[in-house]
């Protein structure tokens, strides 16, 4: 029965929900970040991380510690936890978790295609892929030269097959077309995810709706801003916007006609939350960038997901918050390793 999820949610998903809330309690707090920011070297950082939930995740590292090792190990830890959830999940949680991985898969596919286009060997590209989005045919992506071949040979077996319907019209893979392909794939994925959450109904739909709407609108803003100065026409731009957000349909139409940043900001001012996001942004080097403001808003929405019980949003929110935590730790580690500590406090605190 929709709307009565408290009665039967715990049958299949009660244990995993309790577990993910336990993991959420281990997410670093502002006090932890203050401690990390005061570290002088990466070894210090490793020591501080040992007292948190991360424990001895860097214990087996031989050789000098680098930021990329730390990044890799952080991602591996999240991957282990995510695989545990995915392996123990029943339907429909299993499909939900699969949807979470598709965005990383899309990024991986695009990364591999771009790398192949620049004649990079597959061995160099494979470690750069995000582990959450790995799929079996990943290495074979490099042999394709146009999207049709890519689709027919490789991607038709992956879960991404359903999102490729709009992309087969491109004939070559060149720089511009790859970005367009990425945005079309992502648009199709986001709309499918939104529809899936709406079909679940109840608290899941209620919690995931603002998160996915914000994701759609954020993509629309980023696509618009990035397309200034390129040959992307306004109609093409409008076709790339995901339609499951708050901006659909009037806002998207206005965005498609925008020509500079000021016009984009004016479109955002029609919507109360986006007005607040754009207001915090400055254009100087010391102030917050638009990307940072978007990340901050996303963190706020994801933290709200934990206020309700008996829904799937907690799993999505946990993955996104852990990802933000990885970004924060890597930022602090980079600042420490390059001894450039002026902007070390530009991380986004979560709890």
């Amino acid at each position, binding site marked *: 029965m929709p709307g009565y999820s*408290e*009665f039967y949610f*715990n*049958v299949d998903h*009660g*244990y*995993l*929900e*309790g*577990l*993910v*809330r*336990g*993991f959420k*309690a*281990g997410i670093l707090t502002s006090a932890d970040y203050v401690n990390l920011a005061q570290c002088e070297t990466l070894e210090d950082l490793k020591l501080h991380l040992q007292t948190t939930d991360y424990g001895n995740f860097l214990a087996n590292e031989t050789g000098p510690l680098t930021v990329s090792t730390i990044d890799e190990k952080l991602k591996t830890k999240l991957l282990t936890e995510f695989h545990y959830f995915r392996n123990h999940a029943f339907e429909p949680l299993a499909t939900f978790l699969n949807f979470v991985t598709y965005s990383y898969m899309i990024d991986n596919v695009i990364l591999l295609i771009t790398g192949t286009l620049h004649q990079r060997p597959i061995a160099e590209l494979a470690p750069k892929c995000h582990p959450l989005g790995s799929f079996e045919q990943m290495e074979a992506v490099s042999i394709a030269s146009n999207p049709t071949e890519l689709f027919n040979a490789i991607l038709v077996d992956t879960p991404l097959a359903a999102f490729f319907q709009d992309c087969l019209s491109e004939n070559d893979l060149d720089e511009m077309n790859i970005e367009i392909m990425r945005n079309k794939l992502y648009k199709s994925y986001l709309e499918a995810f939104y529809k899936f959450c709406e079909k679940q109904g109840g608290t899941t739909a209620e919690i995931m709706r603002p998160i996915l709407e914000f994701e759609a609108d954020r993509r629309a803003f980023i696509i618009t801003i990035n397309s200034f100065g390129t040959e992307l026409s306004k109609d093409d731009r409008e076709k790339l916007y995901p339609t499951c957000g708050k901006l659909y349909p009037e806002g998207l139409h206005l965005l498609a006609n925008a020509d500079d940043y000021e016009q984009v900001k004016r479109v955002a001012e029609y919507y109360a939350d986006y007005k607040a996001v754009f207001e915090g942004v400055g254009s100087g080097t010391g102030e917050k960038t638009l990307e940072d403001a978007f990340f901050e808003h996303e963190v706020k929405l994801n933290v709200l997901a934990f206020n309700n*019980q008996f829904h799937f949003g907690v799993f999505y929110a946990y993955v996104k918050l852990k990802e933000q935590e990885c970004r924060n730790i890597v930022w602090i580690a980079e600042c420490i390793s390059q001894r450039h500590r002026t902007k070390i406090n530009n991380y986004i605190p979560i709890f």
Partner: protein
Amino acid sequence: MTGLALLYSGLGLAFWTTLLGVGICYTIFDLGFRFDVAWFLTETSPYHVVQPGHWLAISLSVVGAAWGIYITGSSIIGGGVKAPRIKTKNLVSIIFCEAVAIYGIIMAIPFNGVTPEEIGARNYHAGFSMFGAGLTVVYAISSVGVCVGIVGSGAALADAQNASLFVKILIVEIFGSAIGLFGVIVAILQVPAS
């Protein structure tokens, strides 16, 4: 459609078709007088309604309690992985759910004390009021069982985050159990009145 949905809709369709068919036949053949509710209720013995009240009381109260226990139990297991200290304290929530099942047994005892000589073979008022007592306690107890279970699940997860919250949420559970007690009191009042 999934298998289970297909089964349920098939059964529902079969049931309503039969009912409709029988009703149409009665109307066509002018046998409507046979469909007589009052005759049915007065010709059958009151025990036919006392016994359903009895078994509903005991069985569905246990269903409600079990429902509550599984809701709380899975959350305690999940939360206990990262916060093992909650394991023993949260068993109190499970005991609250089980207490709800005990209300059902308490109800079964007055029912048991009813014998044919005391009730009188033609005392319909007695029969129906006992059925009503059973129904009262059933609704009260199964919903209380589920309520205590849902609150208990929240209590377990909150306790895992912040240990001071457990006792406060327990108070909410106690109020929930108290409501179930109201149902039991009303039902017990209904039994001797027959």
